């Protein structure tokens, strides 16, 4: 019987080479594959391109990976936060490349990669500095910018429940980038709170079908779901 269950996070990430492009799910703490990110730091691959909504917070997780000099480029929508000092320092020192992408374009470009779309026209960003140099077209009286897909070698995501075939369910707003990233990478690794027996997930409730998932690692119930250490760091224009 096919099984994508992988015993440890170390096994799940063992083959990531230097120079890999890696999507990391999550929006804030919700949906962040914390254990996989920590293992990526241990694993040692370097010269990575990371695709994530943010560019790390504080000194742990993605910020620690950046601080260790392992990321050469980051593709994200919102790098600057009150506690993004690691990214800020590297960026100002010219030690990391940034591709800034509006959040919805980021999600849709990732979705396009997984759906086999060659490129698409979107109104988001038209007439702004983030569309400079990009092809534009007027369609039906509205202006659009041509955007290309974003794919990855690996996607690291977090889900709530999985079965051995890699079918996934999510919990509340932690779904965020998980389903689109899962489909856009050659190898998708999902960390989940619990693996359940085959047939225990309601097929009608599966959000990410197992075809998009390569490896599943069970990490156990997350202690911080009990309410400890909740990040309430706001982001966004304070205009």
């Amino acid at each position: 019987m096919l099984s994508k269950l992988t015993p440890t996070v170390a096994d799940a990430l063992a083959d990531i080479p230097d120079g890999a492009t890696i999507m990391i799910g999550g929006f804030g703490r919700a949906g962040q594959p914390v254990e996989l990110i920590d293992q990526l730091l241990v694993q040692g691959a370097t010269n990575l391109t990371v695709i994530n909504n943010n560019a790390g917070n504080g000194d742990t997780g993605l910020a620690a990976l950046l601080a260790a000099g392992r990321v050469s480029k980051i593709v994200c929508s919102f790098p600057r936060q009150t506690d993004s000092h690691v990214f800020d320092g590297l960026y100002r020192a010219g030690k990391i490349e940034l591709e800034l992408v509006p959040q919805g374009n980021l999600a849709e470009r990732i979705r396009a990669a997984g759906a086999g779309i060659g490129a698409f026209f979107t109104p988001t960003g038209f007439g702004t500095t983030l569309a400079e140099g990009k092809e534009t077209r007027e369609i039906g009286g509205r202006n659009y910018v041509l955007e290309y897909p974003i794919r990855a070698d690996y996607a690291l995501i977090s889900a709530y429940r999985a079965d051995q075939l890699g079918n996934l369910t999510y919990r509340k707003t932690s779904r965020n980038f998980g389903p689109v990233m899962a489909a856009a990478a050659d190898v998708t690794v999902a960390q989940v709170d619990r693996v359940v027996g085959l047939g225990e997930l309601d097929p009608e409730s599966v959000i990410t079908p197992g075809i998009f998932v390569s490896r599943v690692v069970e990490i156990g119930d997350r202690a911080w779901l009990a309410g400890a250490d909740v990040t309430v760091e706001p982001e966004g224009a304070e205009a």
Partner: protein
Amino acid sequence: MTGINRTELAARIAADIPVGAYVNLGIGAPTLVADHLPAERNITLHTENGMLGMGPAAEGDEIDPDLINAGKIPVTELPGASYFHHADSFGMMRGGHLDVCVLGAFQVSVGGDLANWHTGAPDAIPAVGGAMDLAIGAKSVWVMMDLLTREGVSKLVEACSYPLTGVGCVNRVYTDRAVFAVGRNGASVIEAFGDTTLDELRELTGLALTE
């Protein structure tokens, strides 16, 4: 000349939101609008990280790290809430399914251009988040802001000097002094607050405002 305070302005904006509307409230001052949307008006709040039917901020035991809003603040879910992934959530916006979006701004032009993501300072680290998506992400895009900066300079302008977030995307501007319509026909005053007059607004903004 008098105006209204932020709470009154939030209530004024809320009063203009149609019954039954789907609404996204941007981070910062626009979130205050939610305090003035009574349940009987059946308004559904969208948060772009992937939820419709968002309830008030979570407190105490309600706090769930898997349930946050676009500002990363723990929130609650109301009966009838739904969750969806980021591409669906932004597709919902881009596809014109939301009725109203309320945003903050550094500047808005009389033609409806919006600047709210970057001050243009050369040493600033750029961060856009969902700002450009929100700017074009609803049938009606409204801005909530003070009319003047702390230095007394009008934020309603002929042409934005800050980098744009969106072109011709704003319909209406709610400020502490007046409500303005903006767009292809330029800026006009919908309502002036207190004893503010049209001439005073013209003087403060330096714009040829119409009634």
